[in-house]
Structure formats: C-alpha cells, structure tokens
C-alpha cells in the first residue's frame, strides 16, 4: 500500500479569518459615507483630488517597490490605496492636482517607503503628506471651497474664530453634523464620520480607546479654558483625525493603556494648538507628534503580565 503524503506544519493549525487587506478594506468601507458627502458637496474638484491622490499613491508604491526595492508588488495589501483615500480626505477640494500628486509622493515615498514600507513607518503617511503641503503651499491648503457654491471659497469655522470674526456659538449644530461648512474634503460632516466609527467598532477593526480618549483630552482643556466643547469636537478635522488617522495601527500604541495615554495627549495638544498656537487647527500636528512618541509608549506602557515574576528565593 502506498503511504499517503501528509502535510506537516507547526501549531496552531487554525487561523482567524481576519487579514491585513481585510482590515484596510473595512476602513475604506467606513470612509464611504464621508467620501459620499464630500463628493456631493464639492462635486468635480473633490473627485479630481480623490482620483489623483489614490492613483499617485498606488503609482509611487508600485514604482518604488518594483524599481528601487526590486521586490514583488505590495499593492495587494491595500495600504497604499487607503493612504491615497485618507490623504485626499485631508485636503481641500479644489487643491491643484499637481500639489495633490506631490503630497502623495511625500506620503508614500518619504513617510512610508523610505522607512521600510508597511509596518515600519513611524509617522502616519497621509498626515505627513498633508503637513508637507500645508507648509509648502499654505494658501492653497487653507482655501476651502464652500459646499455647493461653485467658485466661492471661505474660511473654516476654526479660522473665523481664530481671526475673531465669529464666535463659535454662532454656528448651529446642524451644519457641523451634516458638513455644510468650509473644511477639507473628509472633515466636513461629523455625522458621516461617526457612521464610519460605528461601522469600525462593529467589525472590530478599531477599539474605542483612541477616538474617545482624544475627544476626552480635548474636552478637558476646553473646559479649563472656558471654550465651547461641542463645536470644537465637531469641527476642524478632529473626528476625521480621531477616528481614521490616529487609529492607524502602525503608528499608534499596541496596548489599550498605551492607546489611552496617546489619545488623551493628542486631544490636549490639539486643544492647546487651536487656542494658543499659530495654526487654527492642530489635529495633524498633534497626531504626528504623538506618532513620534509611540515607540516610547510601547516601551514603557507594557501589558500587565499574567502574574508577577517569582521573587528570587534567598536560601
């Protein structure tokens, strides 16, 4: 009798159905409401920024892995696609397309691949791309088209407040929730972002720790500074950042306690920059700063062990 060939491998022999591309896919699904709202409000310019951002990110990822790393393509892991979408959502609709493409080159080429690719980068690629553009092209980056009004641009709520032309109490809740205000593509509708948050929690791709602690950190500083909390939470990319940018697996801490610390600090930093800093919005900077501290947090905020080490018995 012929002995059948058996497959040999080490344990475990069972495996979760979750995959890394699957997680990326879930985040994309969660972004759909926000994408839909921004396309509805900003029409063609938004579509242009979105397409150019995504295509440039994919092209840079493909070209660098192919010609510089000489490794098999990594497009299938979905991370470059997601970075492209996130970058677009962090830009104002109507940003010149060549600037968008430049942002993508920095995001994928410098912030991600120069660090070694997926999993090795310290800073969130999409945010690095955005901040690069913000510093290089401050005017274009802060010219926000007003939703549904062709050719009209206006300041964001936070800029108006900073300039003293408007008190935050003047704007009602509805525009903040629905997105009927100035801002970058993805940040304008809090409702759409919260829908995405609910989805991510349901499919357990992220936990509540980072977004909630960011909001809490911001609220604490606001309360101390006597600033209205709700508009501050609903505007200026805070929710976009808290739900989709700060929760990036690669650049956020590994443990739940680490996540809480990271989140609270992002929230507080954001509030401080918004109130007292030079920029009207502080979310991107705060997240990037805390990205930089993530390795440190991982080093010092360890999971608690099952039980303490046995005390050395002294004979």
């Amino acid at each position, binding site marked *: 009798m012929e*002995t*059948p060939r*058996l*497959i*040999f*491998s*080490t*344990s*475990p*022999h*069972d*495996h*979760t159905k*979750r*995959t*890394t*591309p*699957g*997680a990326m896919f879930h985040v994309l699904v969660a972004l759909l409401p926000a994408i839909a709202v921004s396309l509805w409000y900003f029409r063609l310019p938004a579509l242009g920024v979105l397409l150019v951002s995504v295509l440039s990110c994919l092209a840079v990822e493909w070209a660098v892995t192919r010609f510089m790393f000489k490794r098999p393509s990594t497009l*299938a*892991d979905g*991370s470059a696609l997601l970075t492209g979408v996130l970058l677009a959502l962090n830009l104002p609709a109507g940003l010149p397309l060549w600037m968008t493409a430049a942002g993508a080159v920095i995001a994928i080429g410098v912030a991600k691949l120069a660090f070694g*690719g*997926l*999993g*090795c980068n310290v800073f969130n690629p999409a945010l690095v791309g955005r901040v690069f553009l913000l510093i290089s092209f401050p005017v274009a980056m802060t010219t926000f088209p007003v939703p549904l009004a062709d050719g009209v641009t206006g300041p964001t709520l936070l800029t108006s407040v900073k300039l003293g032309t408007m008190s935050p109490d003047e704007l009602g809740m509805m525009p903040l929730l629905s997105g009927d205000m100035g801002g970058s593509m993805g940040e304008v509708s809090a409702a759409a972002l919260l829908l995405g948050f609910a989805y991510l929690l349901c499919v357990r791709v992220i936990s509540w720790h980072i977004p909630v602690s960011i909001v809490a950190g911001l609220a604490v500083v606001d309360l101390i500074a006597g600033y209205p909390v709700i508009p501050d939470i609903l505007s200026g990319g805070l929710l976009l950042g808290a739900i989709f940018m700060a929760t990036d*697996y*690669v*650049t*956020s*801490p*590994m*443990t*739940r306690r680490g996540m809480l610390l990271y989140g609270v600090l992002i929230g507080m930093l954001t509030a401080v920059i918004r109130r007292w800093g030079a920029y009207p919005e502080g979310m991107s900077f705060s997240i990037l700063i805390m990205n930089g501290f993530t390795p440190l947090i991982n080093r010092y905020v*360890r*999971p*608690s*062990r*099952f*039980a*303490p*080490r*046995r*005390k050395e018995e002294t004979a």
Partner: protein
Amino acid sequence: MRLTFKKGGIHPAENKTASTRIEMQPLPMTVCVPLSQHIGAPAEPTARRGDKVERGQLIGRAAGTVSANVHAPISGTVASVDNAVLADGRPGRVVIIKADEESHAADTAAREEYWKKVADSSFGDTSNDPHTPEELRDMILGAGISGMGGATFPTHVKLKTGAVKPDIMIINGCECEPYLMCDDALMRNYALRVVQGSQLLARAAGAEKTIIAIEDNKPEAIDAMRKAAAAFDGMEVVAVKTKYPQGGEKQLIAAVTGRYVASGALPISTGVVVDNVATAFAVWQAVATSTPLIERVITVTGDIPAPERKNYLTATGTPLSELPFTLPENAKAILGGPMMGRCAVNLDAPVTKGTSGLLLKSTGAKRTVYPCIRCGACVDVCPMGLEPYLLATYGRLHRWDDARQADVADCLECGSCSYACPSNRPILDFIRIAKKRSR
C-alpha cells in the same frame, strides 16, 4: 459572571461535531509502543525480542524521577525493540508486539468483558478505598499514568507534594481545544468513573477540595458530572466560560480559584494540582480494576464525512491508519487539537497515551504573509500578558537576552497569537526558537 481567566484568550470556531458515543476500536494485530509517551526520560524496556507478553504486562519501566511505566496494549510476541521515527517526526525507542489469531481473540473477549463491568455502576466503588495517599501514588506510578490532556506529564510526579501542601484538586474537563470531544464523551458516558477517579486523585494529593471544571459549551457533560458528583463530599462541578485556552493549567487555576501562578513557579506553589478528566478515569481504572493505561478515548474528526467523526476507545500503539476515516485532499493529520496539536509525519504512527484526537484537516491555499502592521491583536489575545510581536522579533534577530528580559519563558505556546495575527505571521515559531535559545 462566568468564571474565566482575566487576560487575553480567543474564540476559535468550535467545530465540535463528532458523535459523543464511544465506539470500540478493534485491537490491532500489531502494535508499535513508544517507550516515551510522556514528558521526561523514556522508560527502560523490560521486554526483549522474542518474549511472550500478556496484555497489560509491564514492557518499559519508568527510568528516573520524571518518567512513566509502559505496558503491553495487546498480548503477543515482542517482534523487536528498536529505534524508530515517532509520530511527530522525532526519533525514539519503540516496542513492537505482534499478536496471533488466538491471543487476539482472547484479548478481544477479555476487553469486552472488562468494559461491560466498567459500565455497571454497582461495580468498582472506590469511595471507601482503603489505600493511603502513598499507596495510591504508587498504584498510579505502577499503571503508567501520565497527563492525558496533551502535556503528558507523569501523574505520580505531580501528586508528590513538596514544601506546599495542596488544598484544591482541579479536574480539568474544559476541553478548550476546538474539534476534540473525547473528554466530553468520557464525562457523558462514564461520569461516575471520572468522579470516582477525581476523588482518588484528590486523596493521593492530600487535597480536601475537588473542583471539576467544564466549559459551558458542554451542558450535557456538566449535568452528568453534577449528578454523579452529588453524593461526594467536598466535590464541586463548576461551569467555566468557553474561551481558549481555558484548559491551560495556569488559566484554569486563576479562573476557578482566583490564584495566580507566579512567573517561573510551578502550579503547585498556589496549593492547587490540576489533572485531566481522562487522567482521573485512568486512575479509577488503575485503583478499582488494577488495569494499567493501555487504551484511551480519542476523537477522530476534521474534514472527513460527518458520520466518520467519532470517538473511539483505542489501544495505545494502534497505527493511526487503522482508524476508520477517509483521508481528505492535502491532508494534515494532527495529533490533538488544532491549536496545540502536532502534525503526524505519517499514518503508520501509533496512538499514544497523550493522543486526545486525530484531526484530519484539508489544507487550503497558502495564506499570504504580510508585514507586521503593529495592530496589537497578538498582544490583546496573549493569555500570559506577553508581547508576542516583540518576542517574535527578538527570535528572528537572535536577541536571546532581550527575549529573556521580555519573559519569553512564560509563553505557554498556546498559539493564540499566531491564530489572531491578520498578517499571518508565524509568531509562535519564532517565539519557540527564542524560548529554546534564551534558556
């Protein structure tokens, strides 16, 4: 509040679809009996080539403190005592016994007679067993009993108490590995025997209290065991949450007693001894019927037709290929469950004391490995509170000192981290290397 351990754990698909009846697997004509079916030193062979041996006769004597006796599972002639490749691919010594028609028929008749007696509850009452704990331990040593849940640690060694006197005996009926149902079947069909064996184990360990812990996905087993245990003093059957690795010794002690075994310490340091239900059953057999451990219940299951998924009472040394099943395409033959079981290198390999199941899995397409995305899933699920991604990195980079500092020795190799990793990283493989090299 359902009893469980605090940190980590996973919920893999249970797949407990085998029948809970226990069928008799016919005795084989030839057995291949490894002299090392337990952790520790292999037994010294006491039989030689050409010897006639009786079923149940000693053929290997425990060598050293941590070792176990080995007995002949069938009567016959010793064909050879030889080196062979064991089921999991490692070398070891085996005793090969060949039966003849006559001895086979006699063994089969005696076996049937024996199991009829076991099923008769008026027989074999051990509640007033006169033996002292020392005598019980000697009987357990004599019967060659080692842990039957998978770790195969010699049972008499566990019961030998040193500085710490145990006060609680936990009988582990969790069966937290997916697919496996041998303990479930045993508890449903032989609840009284398991309870009697548990009482004997507790006496041998000197523990006043006996707690039988069963995962709450086995309500019938819990019922049967509660009924059987009702008449026993100081014995309690508790349901624990269905969560892997609930049956891990440290996890179970924490769940049931709230005591935590310190890093680097033995479970006994908390005053608790844990033994498996199948081990308890074997202890009853040894004390009440003077029968050594030569057969056990094993689950045959996996990607095979549903009617073939069954539990078999199988003589140790039976080649896996004699069990009735249809081998699936691209099969892995896993000895034990999917989380901690080891792959058999071929189907000529024998069933041993520690074989709780034969899981036949058809392996699908190769899963793509992605870079670590630092998602923290492995950290979340580690029941020991370790950082598997970090330990794996240390293992990969040969940073043994760092691995030691990060408590790699605490890893119980439960596989939860590799299970949970969305990037399919072979985390546990690297941790195993780091664990070995950092000792």
